[in-house]
C-alpha cells in the first residue's frame, strides 16, 4: 500500500535518512524500530507531513505523494497518533476528538453530532468516559486512550502509532492489541513505532529496522527472536549491558532516611532508607506514585507530612524539602524531561556542567569554573562533542543525558535521584550511563531511581521497592527479583502464585 523509494532527509549536513526503501502491505501491522536517532520518527514525520523529504519518493497505492503539512497527510487518509500528548486541557474530550475537523451545521459547530461520534470512538476502546469532561481533568492513561481514540476515529486507511503505550497500563495495552487486530482485519495499514520488543512481537506482522538513517532489514516478525532483533538494531552484540553488582549484600551506612512521608492529605505514608553504595529502584506501574515520592524528596513537589533526614558520618540532619535546600544538602535530582527541566540548551557543555560546581556558593561570590575538572569528567563520561564549548542543544540525547548527570557528579553531591535515567537514549549510551551510576555508587554515593522500563530496574538496582497506589508493597533483592514477581506485585500488591491470579 505504501512504498518508500530511496527516501532521503537531511538536517543541515546530517543525513537523518538516506536511501530508505521498503514496502508495506495493507491489512498488516508494521513495526518500525531502531536505536534513538535511527530515523524512524523522521520517516514517520515525512508520512505525517511534519517534514518533507529531500530526495526519493513515497508512493501510496503506486502514486507518489508529498504531504507538506499534517493537514495534507490527513486528507490522504493517513492518521497519526503522536507520542507526546496533544490533547488540550481546556477542551472537552468531544472537542479534542474533533479539533481541526469540527462537524458544522448552519455555520455553527454541531455539538450534538460531536458528542455522539466521540462516545462511539471511545466505546471501540472499551472506555465509557464522559465526553464532556475537560481533558485537563483526566489521568495520563485516560489521556493516552483519548489520544488513540482520536487517531482511530478518523476515516483513514493508514495509521501511525508513535510509542502509543508509554503511559498505558497492562489492561489498556491489551485493549490496544485488540484494536490493532480489528484495524488489521478491516484492511488498514498500521505503523507501530516502538522500542518495546515485547509489543513488537505480540502485535506486529512485519518489522523494519533502521540504523543511522539507513534501512537495515524488513522481515516478518514470525521468523525472528528478541536477540536477533536487538542485534539488527545495534549492529553489535552487547555482551555486558548492565554493570556487575557488587558481591555481597548492600551494607553501607544509611545515606537518606525517609520516615512516614505523606504526599497527599489522607493518603498513605512511605518509609524507607537509602544506603551509601547502593542503587535503589522504585518500580511499579505508571502513575502509582513513584514519581511523586522522588519529586517530593527532590523538593520539587510539596509533601504533606513526614520527615526526611540525610546522614553524613554519624550526623543525621532533618531536611527541609525545598529544591534549594536539598541541593545544598548534597542531593541532586535528574528529571525525566531533560529539554524542559534539565538542561540549558542554548549554553555550552562547560556552562551546563560548571553551574553545578557553584552549588554551595553565595550569589555574591566569584565563580570559578574548573575547566580541568570538566575536561576530565567529559572524558570519563565519554561525552561525544566537538569541544567543551559546544552548545548542549546540539548534542544527541544520550550525550545530553550524560551532561545532566555530569553536572551533579561535578558538584560533589552524594545522593542522586533519577527519573527515567535513560529515556530517549540509544542503546550504547544506556550502557555507559548504567556504568556511570554504578561507579558513582561504588564510590560511596547513593542512587534512588524510578523507571518505567522494568528490565532496567531489574538489571541495575541492588534493591527494588515495588510501589502500588502510593504505597510500598514489597522490597526485593535486585539480583534475585524476577520480572514476573515484580509485575505481579505491581498489579495486585501481593506475591500470589500464578494459579491463584489466573483463577
Amino acid at each position: 500500500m505504501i512504498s518508500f523509494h530511496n527516501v532521503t532527509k537531511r538536517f543541515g549536513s546530517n543525513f537523518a535518512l538516506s536511501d530508505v526503501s521498503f514496502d508495506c502491505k495493507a491489512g498488516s501491522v508494521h513495526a518500525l524500530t531502531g536505536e534513538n536517532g535511527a530515523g524512524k520518527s523522521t520517516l514517520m514525520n515525512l508520512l505525517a507531513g511534519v517534514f518533507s523529504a529531500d530526495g526519493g519518493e513515497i508512493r501510496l497505492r503506486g502514486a507518489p505523494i508529498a504531504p507538506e503539512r499534517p493537514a495534507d497527510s490527513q486528507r490522504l487518509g493517513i492518521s497519526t497518533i503522536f507520542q507526546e500528548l496533544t490533547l488540550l486541557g481546556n477542551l472537552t474530550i468531544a472537542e479534542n476528538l474533533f479539533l481541526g475537523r469540527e462537524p458544522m451545521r448552519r455555520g455553527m459547530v454541531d455539538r450534538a453530532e460531536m458528542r455522539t461520534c466521540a462516545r462511539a470512538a471511545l466505546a471501540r476502546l472499551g472506555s465509557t468516559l464522559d465526553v464532556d469532561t475537560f481533558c485537563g481533568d483526566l489521568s495520563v492513561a485516560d489521556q493516552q486512550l483519548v489520544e488513540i481514540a482520536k487517531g482511530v476515529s478518523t476515516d483513514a486507511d493508514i495509521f501511525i502509532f508513535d510509542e502509543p503505550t508509554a503511559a498505558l497500563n497492562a489492561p489498556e495495552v491489551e485493549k490496544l492489541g485488540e484494536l490493532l487486530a480489528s484495524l488489521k482485519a478491516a484492511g488498514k495499514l498500521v505503523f507501530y513505532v516502538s522500542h518495546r520488543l515485547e509489543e513488537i512481537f505480540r502485535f506486529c506482522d512485519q518489522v523494519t529496522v533502521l540504523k543511522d538513517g539507513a534501512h537495515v532489514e524488513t522481515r516478518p516478525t514470525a521468523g525472528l527472536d528478541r536477540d536477533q532483533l536487538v542485534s539488527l538494531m545495534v549492529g553489535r552484540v552487547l555482551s555486558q549491558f548492565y554493570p556487575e553488582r557488587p558481591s555481597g549484600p548492600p551494607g553501607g551506612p544509611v545515606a537518606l532516611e525517609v520516615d512516614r512521608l505523606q504526599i497527599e492529605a489522607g493518603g498513605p505514608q512511605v518509609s524507607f532508607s537509602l544506603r551509601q553504595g547502593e542503587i535503589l529502584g522504585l518500580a511499579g506501574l505508571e502513575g502509582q506514585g513513584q514519581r511523586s515520592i522522588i519529586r517530593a524528596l527532590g523538593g520539587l513537589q510539596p509533601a504533606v507530612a513526614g520527615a526526611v533526614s540525610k546522614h553524613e558520618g554519624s550526623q543525621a540532619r532533618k531536611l527541609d524539602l525545598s529544591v534549594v535546600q536539598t541541593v545544598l544538602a548534597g542531593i541532586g535530582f535528574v528529571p525525566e524531561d531533560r529539554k524542559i527541566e534539565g538542561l540549558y540548551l542554548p549554553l555550552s557543555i562547560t556552562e551546563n556542567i560548571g553551574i553545578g560546581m557553584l552549588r554551595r556558593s553565595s550569589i555574591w561570590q566569584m565563580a570559578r569554573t574548573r575547566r580541568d575538572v570538566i575536561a576530565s569528567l567529559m572524558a570519563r563520561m565519554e561525552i561525544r562533542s566537538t569541544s567543551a564549548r559546544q552548545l548542549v542543544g546540539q548534542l544527541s540525547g544520550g550525550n545530553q543525558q550524560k551532561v545532566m548527570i555530569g553536572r551533579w557528579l561535578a558538584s560533589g553531591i552524594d545522593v542522586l535521584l533519577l527519573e527515567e535515567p535513560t529515556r530517549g537514549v540509544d542503546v550504547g549510551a544506556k550502557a555507559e550511563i548504567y556504568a556511570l551510576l554504578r561507579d558513582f555508587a561504588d564510590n560511596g554515593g547513593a542512587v534512588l531511581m524510578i523507571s518505567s522500563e522494568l528490565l532496567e530496574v531489574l538489571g541495575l538496582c541492588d534493591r527494588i521497592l515495588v510501589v502500588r497506589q502510593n504505597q510500598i508493597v514489597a522490597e526485593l533483592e535486585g539480583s534475585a527479583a524476577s520480572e514476573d514477581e515484580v509485575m505481579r506485585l505491581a498489579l495486585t500488591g501481593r506475591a500470589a502464585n500464578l494459579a491463584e491470579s489466573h483463577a
Partner: protein
Amino acid sequence: MLDLKRRSRRTGLTPIALALPLALFILLCLSSSTFTSLENLANVNSQIAALLIASLGQAIVAISGGIDLSVGAVMGLTSAILVTVDPSLAVPLAYAMGIAVGLVNGLGVTFFNVHPLVMSLASMTFVQGLALLVNPVPGGVVPGYLRTLAVSEPLGLPAALFWSVGVILLAWYLLNRTRFGLRTYAVGANPASAQRNGVSAARHKVACYVLCSLAAVTAGIFLTARVGAGDATMGAAYSLDTVTAMALGGVQLAGGAGSVLGVVAGVLTLGLISNGMNLLGISPFLRAAVTGVLLLAAIGLQRREAIGA
C-alpha cells in the same frame, strides 16, 4: 456552583469576578443618591462602551495566548484619522489601518517569534507617533453620521447600549459557537498541539491580533464620535485598562481561558469604580492609581506556571 468551578478551566471565571461588580453596584446605590438616576446609569454605559469593545478584542488575543498593548494607540490613530481624512473615506481607512496594525503584530509574534509584549510595545510606540504626526493638536470635526450613531437615543435608550449589546452578542457567538472560537481556546492552551490537529496556530493568532485591532478601531470610532473631537492620545489609558478589565474578569494572560461574561464583569467593575470616585468627589488622578492597585490584585490572583514577562 460546581459547574462554574468545573467550567473555569475554560472560562477562568471565579465567584469573586462575578460578585465584584454586583457588590460595587449595591455599595454605590447606598452611598450616593444620584447613582441610580437614569441619567447617571446611561452615562456609565456610554463611558464604558468603548472600554467594553476594546476589552473584548483584547480578551480574544489573550485567550489565544497573546497580549496587545497597542490597543490604545490604535484608538488614538483612529481618532486622528476620523478628523483629518475626507469623511467618506475616514471609516474604511481607519479599519484598513486596524487590519495593518493587527497583521504587523500578528506576524511579528508568530513568524518572527517576538514576545507579544515587546512586539505590541513596539507597534504601540510607532502608531502613537504616527497618530501625533497626523493630528498633533486635539480638535477637528467628526463626520456627522458618526456623531448620530454614537449619541442618538433610538427608542429612548442611549446608543451606547446598542453598541454594547451588539459587541457582546458578536463576541459571544464568535467564541462559543464557531470553529474560530473553539480553535482560539485550543491555540491559547497549546499552539503546538493545536497545530498537530491541523489548526494553523500561526494563522489563527494573526487573525486574533487583527480582530483585536479592529475592535480597537471600533472603540476609537465610538469614543471619537461621542466626544465629538479628534485626539491622538485619546486611547493612552486604554491599553492597560483593557488588560485590567479582562484580568479582573478571569481571562488568563497565559492563554486558553476566558469568557465574554467575565470581560463584561471586569469592565463593569472598572466603570463603576470610576463613576463612583467621580460621584464621591475623589481626585481623577487617583483613578489611575486605583486601576493600578486593581490590576495588581487581579493578576496577583491568577496562577501562572512561568515566572517572568
